[in-house]
C-alpha cells in the first residue's frame, strides 16, 4: 500500500540500541540543548504570568481586533498564494517538458534570495502613487491623482502579494523534491487504474507529497507572522507591528511579550491542526523501484501555459525588483563600494556560514535522537524549539538578551565577591550571542528539512541493513547520507540565506563596530534613501542566488538511480 501506519514502529528500531550507555549520554545532551534553545521562548511565554490588565483592556478597546483580523487575513492569503505559486510550477517542471523548463526549474527558487522588505521597497518605488510608473502615467496623460484608479501597493493586499512572491519558493522547493522522489511506478499504476493526468496529480502525487508541502507551508506562514519590515512599511496593523508599538510607543515590554505569546499560541494551534489532519499517518513510499522519470513533452498550447505559469512568479518575485535595484545602484555604486563595504559582505557571509553549519549539526542530532526515541517529551520539545521561526526577530533578541545578561552579571558578581575579579559582560554583546539568537530563530528550518529527509528512510531499511551485518556507522555512511544528501544541503543553504537576510535580531544584539549588509540596507532604506540602499540590497540578493542554484542542482541530482 502507499501508506504505512507505523506510528510507534520506530521506537524499537535500531542504531543507538546497541550502545545503551551512549544513548543515555546523548539523550541528556539532547535535553540540555533543547532546554538551552527553549530559554528565549520561555522568557516570552513567562511574561503571561505578569498580567498587564490596564494595557490589555486598552488594546482590546482600540487596536486588538485590527491586529487579529489583519494577521489572519495575511496568514491565510500568503499561505494560499504561496501554495499556488509553489505547488503548480513544481509539478509542471517535474513532470513535463516545455520551452525553457530546464531553466525555470532552478530559476523558480530565485525569489528566495530576495528579502521581503527589499521587494516591498522596490515595488513601492515603482508602483506607489509617487513611484515612477504612476508619475509617468500622470505626465503622459495629464491626469490628476484622482482621475484614475490604480491598485494601492501599500495595503494588506500588497503585503500578501509581496510576501507570497518571496516565500513561495519554500513550498516549491519541498514540493519539487517530493515529486521527484516519488516512485514513477506509483504514478504509472495510477494511470493503469484509470486516473488521468489531473487525477494522478490530485489523488496520488499530491497526497504523497503532502507532508513535504505542509512543511513548506508551515515555514511560509511562520515567516509571514514574524515579518515586520513589510507590514510596517505598508502601514498594515498586524501582531508584529502591534508588538513593536506596545513596546516602543507604550514602553511596555511585558505587554509586548504577551502579544508575542499570543502569536505563539496561534502558531501552535496551526501546527497542531496540521499534524492532526494527517492523523498520525506516516507516508513512506513502499516501492523503491524507480525507473527514470519520463518527462512528457507538452504540445504548443499547454507548453505556453506552463511557461507562463512558471515564469510569472520569477518575473514578479525576482527579475523586476532586481532590475529596479540595479537601475538605482548604477547611480550610487561608485560611492558605496570600498573597503568598508567588503567588510560588510565578509561579516554577512561569515555569520550565515557559521550559523548554517551549526544549525545543520544540531538539527541532525535532534532528528536522529527523535527518530530513535519514544520519548514524547523530546518530540514535544523539538516542536517547541521549532516555533522560534514564528517569533519576530526583535522578540527573540530580547529573549536572548535578558537571560544572557543575567548570566553575565551573576557571574561577575560572584567572581568579584570571591576572587575580586570582574568578568564584565562575558557573552552578552558578542557575535556568539548573535549566532545563538539566529539558531533559536532558524532551527525550525533545518530541523524540518532534515526530518523530512530522514522520513524517507524507512526503518525497515535499517533493519535489512543490520541483517546483512552492517554496523550502525556504516548504515549511516552508506545508506543515510547518500539518501539524505539533498536534504542536508538544502537545510544548510536555507539557513544560510535566512541569516543573510535577517535584520531585527542583528540590529539589537550585534557588538560594537559590527555591521552586516542587512543592517546597512535597512538603515539607508529606513531613512528613505533607497538609491543608497540599493547596492547593499543587491549584494544580499546576489550572495543568496549562489546557494539557491546549488540547492536546485542537488535536488535534480537527488533522484534515485541518478548518478
Amino acid at each position: 500500500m502507499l501508506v504505512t501506519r507505523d506510528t510507534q514502529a520506530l521506537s524499537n528500531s535500531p542504531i543507538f540500541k546497541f550502545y545503551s550507555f551512549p544513548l543515555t549520554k546523548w539523550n541528556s545532551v539532547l535535553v540540555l540543548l533543547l532546554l538551552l534553545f527553549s530559554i528565549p521562548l520561555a522568557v516570552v511565554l513567562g511574561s503571561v504570568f505578569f498580567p498587564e490588565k490596564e494595557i490589555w483592556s486598552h488594546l482590546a478597546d482600540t487596536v486588538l481586533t485590527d491586529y487579529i483580523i489583519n494577521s489572519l487575513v495575511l496568514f491565510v492569503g500568503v499561505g494560499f498564494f504561496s501554495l499556488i505559486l509553489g505547488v503548480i510550477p513544481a509539478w509542471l517542471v517535474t513532470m513535463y517538458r516545455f520551452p525553457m523548463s530546464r531553466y525555470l526549474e532552478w530559476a523558480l527558487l530565485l525569489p528566495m534570495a530576495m528579502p521581503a522588505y527589499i521587494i516591498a521597497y522596490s515595488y513601492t518605488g515603482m508602483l506607489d502613487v509617487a513611484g515612477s510608473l504612476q508619475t509617468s502615467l500622470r505626465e503622459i496623460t495629464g491626469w490628476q491623482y484622482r482621475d484614475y484608479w490604480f491598485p494601492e501597493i501599500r495595503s494588506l493586499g500588497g503585503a500578501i502579494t509581496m510576501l507570497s512572491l518571496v516565500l513561495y519558493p519554500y513550498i516549491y522547493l519541498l514540493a519539487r523534491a517530493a515529486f521527484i522522489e516519488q516512485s514513477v511506478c506509483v504514478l504509472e499504476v495510477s494511470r493503469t487504474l484509470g486516473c488521468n493526468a489531473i487525477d494522478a496529480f490530485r489523488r496520488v502525487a499530491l497526497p504523497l507529497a503532502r507532508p513535504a508541502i505542509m512543511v513548506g507551508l508551515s515555514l511560509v506562514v511562520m515567516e509571514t507572522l514574524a515579518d515586520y519590515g513589510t507590514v510596517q512599511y505598508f502601514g498594515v496593523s498586524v501582531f508584529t507591528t502591534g508588538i513593536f508599538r506596545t513596546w516602543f510607543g507604550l514602553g511596555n515590554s511585558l505587554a509586548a511579550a504577551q502579544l508575542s505569546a499570543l502569536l505563539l499560541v496561534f502558531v501552535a494551534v496551526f501546527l497542531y491542526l496540521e499534524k492532526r489532519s494527517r492523523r498520525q499517518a506516516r507516508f513512506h513510499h513502499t516501492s523503491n523501484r524507480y525507473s527514470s522519470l519520463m518527462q512528457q513533452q507538452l504540445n504548443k498550447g499547454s507548453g505556453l501555459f506552463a511557461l507562463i505559469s512558471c515564469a510569472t512568479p520569477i518575473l514578479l518575485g525576482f527579475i523586476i525588483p532586481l532590475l529596479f535595484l540595479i537601475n538605482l545602484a548604477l547611480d550610487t555604486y561608485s560611492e558605496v563600494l570600498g573597503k568598508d563595504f567588503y567588510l560588510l559582505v565578509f561579516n554577512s557571509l561569515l555569520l550565515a556560514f557559521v550559523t548554517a553549519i551549526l544549525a545543520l549539526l544540531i538539527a541532525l542530532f535532534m532528528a536522529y535522537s527523535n527518530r530513535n526515541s519514544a520519548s514524547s517529551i523530546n518530540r514535544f520539545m523539538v516542536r517547541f524549539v521549532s516555533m522560534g521561526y514564528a517569533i519576530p526577530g526583535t522578540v527573540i533578541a530580547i529573549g536572548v538578551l535578558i537571560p544572557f545578561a543575567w548570566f553575565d552579571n551573576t557571574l561577575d558578581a560572584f567572581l568579584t565577591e570571591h576572587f575580586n575579579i570582574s568578568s564584565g559582560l562575558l557573552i552578552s554583546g558578542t557575535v556568539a550571542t548573535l549566532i545563538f539568537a539566529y539558531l533559536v530563530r532558524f532551527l525550525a528550518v533545518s530541523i524540518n528539512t532534515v526530518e523530512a529527509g530522514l522520513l524517507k528512510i524507512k526503518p525497515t531499511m535499517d533493519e535489512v541493513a543490520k541483517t546483512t551485518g552492517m554496523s550502525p556507522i556504516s548504515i549511516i555512511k552508506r545508506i543515510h547520507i547518500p539518501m539524505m544528501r539533498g536534504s542536508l544541503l538544502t537545510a544548510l543553504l536555507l539557513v544560510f540565506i535566512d541569516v543573510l537576510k535577517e535584520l531585527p535580531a542583528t540590529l539589537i544584539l550585534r557588538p560594537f563596530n559590527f555591521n552586516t549588509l542587512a543592517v546597512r540596507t535597512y538603515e539607508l532604506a529606513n531613512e528613505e534613501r533607497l538609491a543608497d540602499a540599493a547596492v547593499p540590497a543587491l549584494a544580499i540578493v546576489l550572495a543568496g542566488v549562489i546557494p539557491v542554484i546549488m540547492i536546485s542542482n542537488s535536488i535534480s541530482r537527488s533522484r534515485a538511480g541518478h548518478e
Partner: protein
Amino acid sequence: MKKLFILFLILFQQQLNAAEVSIYSARKEALIKPLLDQFTKETGIEVNLVTGKADTLLKRLEVEGKNTPADILLTVDVARLVRAKEKGLFQVIDSDVLERTIPEHYRDSGKQWFGLSLRSRVIVYAPDRVKEEELSSYQNLADNKWKNRICIRSSSNVYNQSLVAAMIANDGVEKTETWATALVKNFARTPKGGDRDQIKAVAAGVCDVAIVNNYYLAGMLESSQKNEVAAANKIKLFWPNQYGRGTHINISGAGILKPAKHKKEAIQLLEYLVSDKSQQWYADTNHEYSINPNIESNSILKSWGKFKADNLNLNLLGKYNTEAVLLMDRAGWK
C-alpha cells in the same frame, strides 16, 4: 585549571585604560559616523558604535546593568532621553562647555541629558491647491475643510508622538483628543511610509498638506535623485503656530550612562559634538538647526526664514509620551 580560568577571564577583560568611548546610538550610522571619525582623528580617542532603535537600546542598557560597555546613549528624540532618565540610566554631568553652549530649555535641568541638534515639525503644502492664508496651526488642520486632504505618517512614529505630547502639555488631554479624532477624519489615506513619503504624496496630489520634519524636505531638495528634487520643488513649507506658542521643536541628544567606564572621554565627546565645527556639520550635512543659536544655518534652511519655536519644557514630551500613544489609539490614528 583555576589559574587557566583566571587567565581566560583577564583576556576577556575590557581594557579599561585604553583611550576609547563607546556609544549606543539611535542615530543611524551614516548620520553620525563622519563626526565620530573626525573626533578620533583629532583626539586619538577610539569611538565604538552600535546603532539601533532607541527602545531596544534602552532595553539592552537596562538588562546589561552596571556591566554595560556603553558610555553614551544617543537618541534622535527627547522622549527617549527622558525615558532613559526616568529609568535611572544617566548620571549627572557638570560641564561648563555644555551649559554655556546649549540654551537652557534644550538640556535637562537635572544635567542628565543634553540636546545636540534641533528639528522642527512643520507643515508642507501644495501651493497650487492651498493658499498660504488658509494655513495657520496644527490645531487648524482639524477643521473639516481639510477632509481627505492631509497626509501624515503612523502614530508609531516618535516624532508624531512627541508632537501630540506637546499638544497635551499645552492644551490638555481632552482638547487634544478631540483634535486628533477630527484630524484622523481628514486623513487622505491610512498613514504609511516615512516623512519623505508624505512630501512625495503631496507632490503627487494624494493630499494637499502634510506634517513632516524640516530636514527631510531639505534633504530631498539636495538629493541626487531627480524625482525627489522634482517632488520637493512642487511643495512649500509653512511654519505653524507662529501666532501661538510657536512651531513644535524636538532635539537629538545624548546622556552619559551611570556605569560609564570612560566618563572623561565621554564628556570630551559630547563637548566636541556641540563645538562650532560639529554644529556646522549638523547644519550642512543633516540639515538640522544647530543647538547653538550663533551657528549659521544651511542655505536651504536659511531660505525658509526665521521662525518662532515653541519653548515648551522638553521633559514634558517624555512625560506625556505614553499618554499620547494611548490617545492616538483611541482617535483611530493607525
